[in-house]
């Protein structure tokens, strides 16, 4: 267990800046909309997958942070008490006590635990779905994390991963900006392109691996702020339009990657 212990200590030493509120304050409205669209995409996938099940599904949100996804889903269900009662058995796992202390919902489903993604305190085949939202590039050993996900998933269970695309067109256009940003992002231990993520899932024996990129609209900060001022409707329209065009013109080069894969039956 020493390996895991030291992983926690190493993780803690590098990720403590997450307590920094300045990052959250620095987000423009367009960036916030991007994060929201991410929750929408993930929510749609799990709704579709879990809609096929007879059992109440257990969703493990690994690296749930401040429980943004739980808060998003709760908000989706707030006008429908029946759906809320019958909703998923959500379990949020997060190594940072500080992040959990600032969580956006006090409780949801089974609740929250402080634990490591490399050592999930769940038995084999417990979960119907696992979410790794903007997490895998912060982990010391992504292969171990994927293997741990496979262990806790039921056969046929679904894994959804989202991560920043290191091979986006914007990073290809401005490689020096990307290099400068990377040197500042000490918490990002790995950088993934769509094929890297696909290979990781395939190497860990996941089945029916599907990968897509999105968030093609990326502008200098000043222009992003200006577009954000035009309001959420226009911003969303612009993001959707550029995503649709980007998928055709620049396949695989969007700013974010989303992966869906299944544990073999």
């Amino acid at each position, binding site marked *: 267990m020493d390996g895991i212990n030291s992983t926690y200590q190493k993780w803690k030493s590098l990720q403590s800046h997450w307590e920094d509120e300045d990052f959250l304050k620095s987000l423009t409205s367009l960036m916030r909309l991007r994060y929201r669209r991410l929750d929408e995409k993930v929510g749609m996938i799990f709704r579709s997958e879990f809609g096929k099940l007879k059992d109440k599904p257990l969703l493990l949100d690994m690296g749930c942070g401040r429980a943004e996804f739980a808060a998003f889903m709760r908000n989706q269900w707030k006008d429908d008490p029946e759906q809320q009662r019958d909703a998923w058995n959500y379990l949020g796992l997060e*190594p940072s006590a500080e992040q959990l202390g600032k969580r956006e919902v006090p409780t949801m489903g089974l*609740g929250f635990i402080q634990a490591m993604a490399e*050592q999930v305190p769940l038995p084999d085949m417990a979960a119907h779905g696992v979410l790794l939202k903007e997490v895998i590039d912060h982990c010391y050993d992504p292969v171990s994390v994927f293997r741990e996900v496979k262990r806790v998933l039921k056969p046929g269970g679904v894994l959804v991963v989202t991560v920043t695309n290191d091979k986006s067109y914007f990073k290809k256009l401005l490689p020096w900006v990307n290099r400068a940003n990377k040197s500042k992002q000490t918490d990002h231990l790995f950088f993934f392109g769509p094929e890297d993520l696909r290979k990781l899932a395939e190497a860990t024996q996941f089945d029916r691996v599907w990968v897509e990129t999105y968030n093609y609209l990326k502008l200098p900060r000043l222009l992003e702020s200006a577009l954000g001022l035009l309001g959420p409707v226009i911003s969303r329209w612009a993001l959707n339009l550029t995503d649709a065009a980007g998928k055709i013109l620049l396949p695989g080069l969007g700013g974010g990657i989303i992966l869906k894969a299944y544990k073999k039956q």
Partner: protein
Amino acid sequence: MNNELLNILICPACGSALREKDNVIECTACKNRYPIENGIPVLLVDRAEKAKR
């Protein structure tokens, strides 16, 4: 602590069942004791109070 949650969790050190005892979570096999902080189980081996051998 939520019983439904406790029933599904296992010890991160040895994989055995857990129980709540004296406001901490204790492994039924290796006897590691994990704290509950602000209502949240802290299931980190680093933070466990190890059983005396």
